[in-house]
């Protein structure tokens, strides 16, 4: 064939003609999704990008202490701070104190070496009266300026782009020698919390599956009239405020609560042996399972609805017991629903905040509570961002593993 390009009747290439013909329709379709696209960009992509960048950048020190930054740049790591270094420090402290930015500088170093906040502020006040030799003057003001760790922290903070916050988020701290190392066991907060978050979320997911599977099956098999009534019961929690639901659990679970009172009344428990169902992991698991249950039931239901009863009947007529039929015929066909419900519940649980904060106590809080703490109380947004980014990465990794094992296209949400 000499001409392999298909052409229209008047000789134009067919592909180009087709593009032109559908251009208007495509443009119109794009215009329709444009508002959503803009919305997603502004409210989702941009904040996440900001959060990610905040987790690796912090210029609180580098912007306000230019002379010290310059000294660090001129002298390689490991150089003992000399007279020039202390002179630069005094200049910067004086300027920072005048510009009232010394607080931010102090806070930034305090992230890495706790207890150094007052070191900066008090020396800052004295700095304007200092005279050469500055090293002796500064050390006379506060001996702590001679600590390696303070200078290591400052060198570290002199770069606006830093891994400090990820080091902190993985429980690595600056040692007295000025290098990062694993924190002592009793100070490892975040990895423990990450681990607890994933274990608890896994437990909640499993419980939701065990409790939700029979319900979804029932809903799928009952006549429409009854099943839609039951469906309302499943959806009822959705129509109630999350706070109301969580506080109701507090009423039920607390030590003087309904459940404990009932057990004591029935003589199952001694009055002084009341169960601690709240302010621990048990409370978190119970309340979260209840709240996330609909997210498991709905995808399961939608998948089960599409499985005709004839498969079960066929298996039974072929000689399978009801258990074999369930295990080998029914469950494999519900996998898309189990996968969708499992991923949904797990991801929601991993990021859950209000419920563990209210009923979790000390042992039942999750990583999201720690993130919230750094957002609202300690105001270390960079650390909060680093923790959140790690959580995001872990969830994406899980998603990838799921795709590898089951296949995302095998997931059915509704």
């Amino acid at each position, binding site marked *: 064939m000499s001409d392999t390009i298909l052409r229209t009747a008047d000789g134009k290439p067919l592909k180009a003609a087709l593009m032109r013909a559908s251009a208007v329709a495509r443009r119109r379709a794009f215009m329709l999704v444009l508002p959503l696209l803009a919305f997603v960009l502004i409210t989702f992509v941009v904040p996440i990008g900001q959060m990610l960048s905040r987790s690796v950048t912090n210029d609180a020190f580098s912007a306000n202490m230019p002379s010290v930054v310059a000294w660090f740049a001129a002298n390689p790591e490991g150089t003992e701070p000399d007279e020039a270094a202390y002179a630069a420090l005094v200049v910067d402290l004086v300027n920072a104190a005048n510009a009232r930015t010394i607080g931010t500088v102090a806070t930034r170093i305090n992230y890495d070496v706790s207890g150094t906040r007052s070191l900066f502020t008090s020396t800052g006040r004295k700095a304007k009266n200092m005279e050469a030799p500055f090293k002796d003057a500064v050390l006379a003001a506060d001996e702590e300026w001679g600590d390696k760790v303070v200078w290591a922290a400052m060198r570290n903070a002199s770069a606006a782009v830093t891994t400090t916050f990820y080091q902190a988020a993985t429980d690595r701290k600056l040692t007295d020698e000025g290098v990062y190392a694993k924190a002592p066991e009793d100070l490892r907060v975040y990895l423990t919390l990450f681990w607890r978050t994933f274990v608890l979320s896994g437990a909640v997911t499993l419980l939701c599956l065990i409790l939700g599977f029979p319900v979804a099956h029932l809903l799928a098999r009952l006549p429409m009239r009854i099943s839609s009534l039951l469906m309302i019961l499943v959806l009822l929690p959705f129509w109630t405020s999350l706070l109301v639901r969580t506080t109701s659990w507090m009423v039920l679970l607390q030590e003087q609560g309904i459940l404990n009172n009932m057990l004591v009344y029935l003589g199952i428990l001694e009055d002084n042996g009341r169960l601690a169902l709240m302010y621990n992991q048990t409370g978190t698991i119970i309340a979260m399972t209840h709240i996330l249950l609909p997210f498991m039931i709905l995808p399961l239901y939608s998948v089960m609805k599409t499985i*005709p009863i*004839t*498969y079960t*009947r*066929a*298996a*039974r*007529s*072929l*000689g*399978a*017991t*009801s258990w*074999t039929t369930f295990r*080998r*015929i029914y469950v*494999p*066909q519900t996998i898309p629903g189990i996968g969708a419900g499992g991923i949904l519940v797990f991801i929601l649980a991993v990021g859950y905040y209000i419920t563990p904060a209210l009923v979790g106590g000390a042992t039942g809080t999750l990583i999201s509570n720690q993130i919230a703490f750094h957002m609202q109380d300690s105001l270390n947004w960079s650390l909060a961002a680093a923790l959140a980014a790690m959580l995001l990465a872990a969830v994406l990794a899980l998603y990838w593993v799921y795709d590898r094992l089951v296949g995302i296209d095998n997931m059915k949400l509704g």
Partner: protein
Amino acid sequence: MADTKTTDAFVVFDRVQKSYDGETLVVKDLNLSMPKGEFLTMLGPSGSGKTTCLMMLAGFETATHGEILLDGRPINNIPPHKRGIGMVFQNYALFPHMSVAENLSFPLEVRGMDKTVREAKITRALDMVQMGQFANRRPAQLSGGQQQRIALARALVFEPELVLMDEPLGALDKQLREHMQFEITRLAHDLGITVVYVTHDQTEALTMSDRVAVFNDGRIQQLAPPASLYEAPQNSFVAQFIGENNTMEGIVTEISGDKCVVKLDDGELIDAKPVNVSKVGERTRVSIRPERVEMNKSRLQPGAHTLKATVREFIYMGDIFRTRLSVAGNDNFIIKTRNAPDAVRLEPGAEIEIGWLPQDCRALDA
């Protein structure tokens, strides 16, 4: 229409009744007995109770009253998986997450058979339906006809003596359906299995079965071989349901042996064979097949009644002519004539005379 209970009966329904809501009976007093090796079709409109009967036999529904016997054993309390009955479903019900071979292997695995035995049986079953090369496909990769063959092979692979089929060809196109009808009857005959086949397609019932049970309103209306079902329907429902049929209503005026005279509602007298009528003065609905109406007087018995008819419409259908007439007040009287060289093509408006042999015109219940 109680069938007499025979000693060699393989499947027996004994006064079976079924109700879902405790208020209405879906199956009313069903009595049926089938010998081994028979191909029996349950035919009827939807809601007539035929599928319920099949489900009771398979064990997915329990009879509200009465007993079902399989090879002499009552099976009411035997769960479906212990009945050893093969079943083919309307939508095939092939397990979508298993390959063809795994589908066929399933009934053998749950029976605890060895791998080598299983493989031999699967190969044989697939060859039987000419699907040997499709063992590793998924059901979704097969056409409707191929899936139907696999479903058939799966129902037969564990060598059940009784196979139930619930409208198995309902989802296939006409040509494939006709081909599969032939295949299924051939297989059933070759393997000597007993088949209960449920359909609402009368052609399927007539071409495949040894006997057909026509269901309506929860009862068997007639249980007979296809030929007598078509030619000698026992009541007007069966006459209407099987094949095309002309009916006229009237009153019996004479009755003697196997001949009676019916006075139609517009005064015309016709000869008929009394089937469901017993005495003079009874109302009756007479039924005659379109192809048994005679326009040629020389073929009628001497003294037979003839009727005047007006041609309303002539439809050319290739192999036959279908002519719509007005006869005795019925504007929808159809006659069929073969497209023979000497066949007359009637013009609308033409006046003709028609008649029939009395034994072809059956006086049934009104």
